[in-house]
């Protein structure tokens, strides 16, 4: 009897593990969607992964960290299978990916020094603009080519906070910041609000999608189904609310 119990337990366990397919989710530092931190990373992507792993057992989602520029080859090399909060317009080779439906929107705004009129943001070509390396910007037509970039007075960093502070400090004229991250930053540093001017105009409107490697374990329909349920049951909204 005891032997039968052990055998059944083993079969149950084996069948459970064998049925749980691994889905590696790529993420790069893109606050608030993913805060890369050596101690403990956070962000919407991690919260969604946690929810997905709780809400179902067929797929096991694990986070794989990448970088803005590395994310393309990592996807191609099979380092990860899917990536959230992406846009196919951001230099992706569409023949290798499947694109989900839009599951979230947002945008990036310009910030400038204190007391600047909105017209200040109309002509960017003369401004010193601080950007994140590896990101794609609307005023550049999402190009990352050197011949395009060199026409502008651009400087690239890897820190969003640093870019905001560079504007406050006058080291740059304009920085392009994710709207939600700016809110988080201003909540954390309310004094900064008085020292900057935020454009009403968006550099780009985010139409967040999930990109899926073509031969990955998860299909585009499955992903759309998951996203649909996340939106429908308010989970996504609930998660997003934590980062406003």
């Amino acid at each position, binding site marked *: 009897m005891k032997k039968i119990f052990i055998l059944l337990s083993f079969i149950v366990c084996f069948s459970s593990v064998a049925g749980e397919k691994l889905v590696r989710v790529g993420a790069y530092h893109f606050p608030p969607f993913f805060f890369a931190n050596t101690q403990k990373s956070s962000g919407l992507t991690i919260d969604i992964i946690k929810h997905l792993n709780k809400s179902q057992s067929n797929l096991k989602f694990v986070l794989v960290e990448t*970088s803005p520029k*590395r994310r393309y080859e990592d996807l191609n*090399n099979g*380092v990860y299978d899917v990536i959230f909060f992406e846009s196919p317009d951001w230099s992706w080779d569409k023949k290798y990916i499947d694109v989900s439906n839009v599951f979230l929107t947002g945008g990036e705004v310009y910030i400038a020094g204190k007391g600047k009129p909105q017209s200040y943001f109309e002509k960017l070509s003369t401004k010193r603009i601080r950007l994140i*390396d*590896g990101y794609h910007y609307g005023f550049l037509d999402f190009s990352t080519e050197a011949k395009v970039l060199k026409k502008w007075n651009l400087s690239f960093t890897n820190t969003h906070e640093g870019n905001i502070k560079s504007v406050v400090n006058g080291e740059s004229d304009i920085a392009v910041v994710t709207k939600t991250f700016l809110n988080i930053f201003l909540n954390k540093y309310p004094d900064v609000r008085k020292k900057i001017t935020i454009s009403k105009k968006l550099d780009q409107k985010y139409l967040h999608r999930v990109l899926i490697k073509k031969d990955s374990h998860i299909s585009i329909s499955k992903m759309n189904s998951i996203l649909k349920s996340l939106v429908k049951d308010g989970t996504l909204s609930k998660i997003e609310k934590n980062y406003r």
Partner: protein
Amino acid sequence: MNKASTLSAITIFFSVLLGWLIIANTTINFFDAHHDKQFENIKESTMSTSSQAIRLPLWNYDNVYIEQILDSILFKSFEDVVVAISLENNKNKELSYRSVDRFKEHTFSSLSSLSYIETLSRNIEFKGRTLGRIRIAFSKEPLLKELSEFSSKFLIFGVMMAIVLSFFITYIMRSLLTKPLAEIANEASQIHLDFFNVKLKRYKLKELNELSASFNKAMKEISQRGVELGQQNIHLEKLVEERTSELDKQRMNNFEGSRLASLGQMAAGVAHEVNNPLTIIRSHSQKLSNELEEFNQPKLQERAQKIVKTVDRISSIIHGMRAFSRDGRADNKKNFPIEPFVLNLKSLCENMVKSKDIFFDVQFEKGIQIFGNETQLGQILINLINNSIDALEHVEEKWITISFSQAEKLTSIRIKDSGRGIPEVVRKKIMEPFYTTKEINKGTGLGLSISFGIIQAHDGHFYVDGDDPNTLFVIELPRVIV
């Protein structure tokens, strides 16, 4: 620079150079080992720093930053030992390769084949992933070049130091040793038999100073000894002169003795030749006297007898001459009776003293035997009588007495005249050869000294008795009892 200085300079140069080469070898080996260790440390630290520094830019594919870092590693490496650097992704695709100008034609792989190039590779790990690898080519050339330059400088410095030191030490040695030694040699060369007045100065070197002091002391002593020798020489010369004078005197003495001996021989010869005619004269005179007696011619007989007596007297004189004038030096000493000795003496002297109006008397005990050389003793007495005759020339009362007496062990002969004695000053020198108080050409001054020598040869004493108010010579001879 003299030969010794040149040799010393060369010896010092090679000694210092050899010592320096040993030090250089040890030092260079030490630095070589140090460079090896330094090279290893540079490699390790470069690999570690590079892999750490490059991982974030590589993660972000921040090409500008990657290039900056690679340039920094390549061109700002310690001692310029990094000559090439290659960055690959995790698919071994070379993302960047750069090298220093002199290896521009090389690929990283071809660099690895060079003997003085070492290549190291290290994976770049980040966020649990291998992002790629960095490969760095290290060249030991700069360190070897540095070591070579150091060795060259070290050796050049060693040679220069050896030259400077050899000159310096040679100069010091020359000042302290060689030059003073040359001076000492030069001073020493001035020394000869008549010149010792050489004085060395003080020197800085203790040993030379001691040598100088010893030398000066020796010179001083030699100089003093020279003075002393000079004085001794003068003394010796004086002594030689005195001895030569004595020898001359002795030679004269011998010569006088020989001369007297020759005279004696001649007198003896004359006496012998005269004696035969005298014998004939006496014989015929006696015959004539006898015949005149027969013919009763008393006056003529008396005259003939006078001739006989005169001849006898001449014979007696001749006998005396024969007895005392011969060279008796070769005669042996023997006992002889005093009577014939006195008879001969009187025969020889009576006429001399009579002609000078001098009373002459000889007193003796009968039967006395004298041991000695009869001839020499007779000559001594005749010499003394002659001296007395000369001394009494201006004396009013003139007499000469000779007395022979005999005690238990001595036979004394006392020759006394009426003179007033001999002053003490004269007495002290009277027995010395050539001392005479007589007028020039009257005396040789040898008579008494010869007499003194003869008496000494007889183991006797011959002296002037100063206590006697008259002049008294005493001869004492050991008595021989037969």
